[in-house]
């Protein structure tokens, strides 16, 4: 949790500088700053979770943005400890909506024999730049491990994928994961256990 907040901090700015916070209201400033820190701490992991589910960078960004907006508009006044399960619940709903819409769009587009590639964009070299990397050999190993894990995650059933990422990446406990997924704690344990078993079966050679 804290390492991600540190990662995001260069991009954050004090909430009071937004011009959207009542400078005469210290409580509003405090809350805005807390919300800023919370969102900065979850945005990268949330993006990864959305990307694993949607397998599309722009869609994942849209989903995270929508979740941030909805949390800020509807739940900013809730206690800060409730934000994380709420945020991931909102994100999950958004991901599901986008998947449904994509399914419908796919069915409709299947009727058209010729589909243009206008959505395909040339890769932006700046966007391809990554954070400072370790040594080249180590980087290759990591590339391979990351690629294999992301591929295996992408093949998991959605609920298993969600339980695994919320627990392993985001670090939510069982109760928080259950709140975020809208299911019982028993279901979370089952999904998580099955996810680990499936991933271990597929990636065992790489990870053990």
């Amino acid at each position: 949790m804290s390492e991600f907040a540190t990662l995001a901090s260069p991009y954050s700015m004090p909430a009071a500088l937004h011009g959207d916070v009542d400078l005469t209201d210290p409580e509003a400033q405090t809350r805005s700053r807390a919300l800023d820190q919370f969102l900065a701490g979850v945005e990268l992991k949330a993006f990864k979770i959305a990307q694993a589910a949607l397998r599309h960078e722009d869609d994942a960004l849209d989903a995270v943005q929508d979740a941030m907006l909805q949390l800020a508009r509807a739940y900013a006044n809730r206690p800060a400890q409730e934000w994380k399960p709420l945020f991931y619940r909102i994100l999950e709903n958004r991901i599901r909506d986008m998947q449904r819409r994509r399914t419908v769009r796919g069915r409709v587009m299947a009727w058209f024999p010729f589909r243009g590639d206008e959505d395909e964009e040339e890769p932006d070299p700046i966007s391809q730049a990554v954070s400072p990397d370790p040594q080249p050999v180590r980087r290759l190993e990591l590339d391979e491990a990351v690629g294999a894990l992301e591929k295996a995650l992408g093949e998991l059933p959605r609920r298993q994928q969600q339980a695994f990422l919320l627990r392993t990446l985001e670090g939510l406990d069982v109760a928080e994961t259950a709140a975020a997924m809208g299911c019982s704690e028993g279901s979370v344990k089952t999904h998580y256990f099955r996810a680990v078993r499936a991933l271990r079966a597929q990636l065992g050679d790489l990870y053990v």
Partner: protein
Amino acid sequence: MSPLNETLTEFERNARAVLTQSVSRIDARTRSRLNQARQAALAAAGARRRSLSWRSLTLMPVTGAAAAAVLVVLLWHHEPAGIEMPMPEAQRSTVEDMDLLADNEALELIEGWDGPFYEWAAAQTEANAESDG
């Protein structure tokens, strides 16, 4: 750190490390866009907060005035149950006249007035009395 760490297997720890690594390698463009999304969300929260406080301040007198107006109207039209309000005599007779005019049977009686028949009947009664006497 999460309590999950206490019970993680080696596989899970490795998977977590790889996921963490993948997060740290998110490119600058994506980070920038996420930052913009966060700023937009914070702005929306600030706008909503201001809107709510503005509404609470401005709608309070409006709501109070509306409630007062409703109360005045209710009191104005309110009549206590079971108590008949006194009616002026002239107004009462006018109302009774209206009742007569609205009564169909009363109109038929007026239209069917036969003056000669009653005069004849009265004359017959007087004649009988004289012959008896």
